[in-house]
């Protein structure tokens, strides 16, 4: 029962830091800023003739396609052009405007903001253990009548709670801002994707949005576990933040360098960006599927947490 007060304590510590409030405020400002800018800068009547625009695009793409084929160009580029043409044709046929904006579309567009959330969560997770070591406060905490794993668990849960709460705040803010800017409708709005077999399909935007929300929870958990582990092992927040950020951002680079290695699909890097797997488009490594990636991430998370707890339990605290 008293364990909950450990959790309360950690929560209070997180929110006593000024930076925490910036972490929450910054994404919200961006969400508002983008919507306002979009409203002010774009002429809503500009795309009234979107069908003609798309037709023009198709023509241009077709021409580019011919040229590329003639020059024996990059296969990836050819595929992309073909896919674009197909999607645009489908859009015209089925009357799906890519320019129709609703709050759901806005949420889909703003999905990359999750990188920012990931970044902030890494900072908090990387700091929550190591800063107590570097400031020496850890010894004031560990001499209480609680086993060490309980104290560490309170920190883990507090960080996860913070990460999830922040993500939820961002989601709700996006929905609200998007709704005020573009209207709350569009629950049945669709978008076009090309499935693996090259087939063109229509999908509900809400489906994408909710899948992305769910997957972000998983990604955040992995990031927290990673940052948490390094923070505990090295007792240094900068190392923790550095490594976790590297995993998150440099992942694509590492994959490019190592893409011909078979084991690449079992690395953390390859599986860190789950949202590309929702539609399977622009996917770097074709072998990856959602269930596979989630399983790999789950295994990594378990192992990282096990290491963290074992090391923390045994460590001599000389802070």
């Amino acid at each position, binding site marked *: 029962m008293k364990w909950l007060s*450990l959790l309360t304590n950690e929560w209070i510590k997180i929110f006593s*830091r000024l930076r925490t409030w910036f972490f929450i405020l910054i994404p919200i400002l961006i969400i508002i800023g983008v919507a306002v800018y979009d409203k002010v800068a774009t002429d809503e009547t500009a795309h009234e003739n979107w069908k003609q625009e798309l037709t023009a695009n198709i023509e241009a793409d077709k021409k580019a396609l011919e040229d590329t084929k003639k020059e024996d160009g990059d296969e990836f580029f050819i595929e992309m052009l073909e896919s674009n043409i197909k999607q645009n044709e489908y859009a015209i046929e089925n009357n799906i405007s890519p320019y129709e904006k609703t709050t759901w579309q806005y949420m889909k567009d703003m999905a990359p903001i999750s990188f920012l959330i990931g970044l902030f969560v890494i900072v908090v997770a990387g700091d929550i253990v190591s800063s107590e070591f570097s*400031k*020496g*406060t850890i010894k004031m905490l560990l*001499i*209480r*009548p609680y086993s060490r794993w309980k104290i560490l668990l309170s920190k883990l849960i507090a960080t996860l709670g913070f990460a999830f709460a922040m993500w939820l705040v961002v989601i709700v803010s996006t929905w609200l801002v998007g709704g005020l800017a573009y209207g709350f409708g569009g629950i049945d709005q669709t978008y076009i994707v090309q499935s693996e077999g090259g087939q063109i399909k229509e999908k509900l935007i809400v489906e994408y949005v909710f899948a992305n929300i769910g997957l972000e929870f998983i990604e955040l958990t992995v990031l927290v576990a990673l940052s948490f582990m390094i923070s505990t092992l090295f007792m240094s927040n900068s190392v923790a933040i550095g490594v976790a950020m590297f995993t998150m951002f440099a992942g694509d680079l590492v994959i490019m360098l190592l893409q011909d290695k078979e084991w690449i699909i079992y690395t953390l890097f390859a599986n860190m960006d789950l949202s590309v797997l929702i539609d399977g488009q622009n996917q770097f490594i074709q072998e990856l599927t959602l269930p596979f990636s989630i399983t790999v991430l789950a295994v990594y998370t378990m192992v990282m947490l096990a290491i963290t707890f074992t090391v923390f339990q045994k460590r*001599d605290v*000389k802070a």
Partner: protein
Amino acid sequence: MTTHTLELKNVTKRIKGKTIVDGLSFSVREGEIFGLLGPNGAGKTTTIRMIVGLISITDGEVLVNNVNVRQNYETAMERVGAIVENPQLYDYMTGYKNLMQYARIMPDVTQERIDEVIKLVDLEYAIHDKVKTYSLGMRQRLGVAQALLHKPNVLILDEPTNGLDPQGIYDLRNYLRLLANNGTSVVVSSHMLAEMQMMCDRVAIIQNGKMVRIDEITNHDEEKDVKVHFHIDGDVHQAKQVLSDGDTSLVLEIIGNELVVETADNKTIADLNRQLVLAGILVVGIQRKTKTLEERFLEMTKKGGNVNEVAIPVNK
């Protein structure tokens, strides 16, 4: 029967093959102030870290209120309050919020108790300021406050007077005495001799991780530490000769015109005096002097052989 609230049995700490604390044993009684005295690097803080579970115990046992710290940590720590080295606090929070951190997770800390403790350490005026604005002494006071919050019956303070002003030291000493009178066992570590002498009931002298001896702090207890000064009007060397002829085992020393004899009970003093008088030596004064703890400490911990000489009878 005396109850022991804290017992160390052959406690040893080795780090990378280096023995830092070596077979340390002592018991702290209920209601006593027990001092750990030793030079820098003696192993005081290391010992305290083992007691409160911050570092592992290589060998031996620590019992708090008869509960083994290693086997049953949570129960053992329930009634322990401690400061290990400097109290490190959350700079970005107020003193009050810092206290609340610990109040929340310790059993039975009421609002009244929190206020009471703040008043006790004299921090009311600054308790709602951020800790980063605190002076060293104010941090120390807050550290003491957090250690006292849950009314521990074993209070362990590592160098508690560090940074305190004379008033603060005086208040702390009085308060610790009050706590001890009410049954709390207090363990304080320090390398400040005079302070330990004023504060403690018993002092364990530690050097190189080993127990040198445990001293009761009273006025003149152990005979060994009493020195008798004979003020001689005349030839001191002759007086020395007279006494050593009488008893060759006597330890004699000449300081100025005083002959210092390491001894002994009243009977021997009278006897020695008679010998001197009979030899025609003018004794103008006799004084008993107990060695101060400081003298004992320096004597025992100074580099060289006589450390071991003193240590041997203790270890028997």
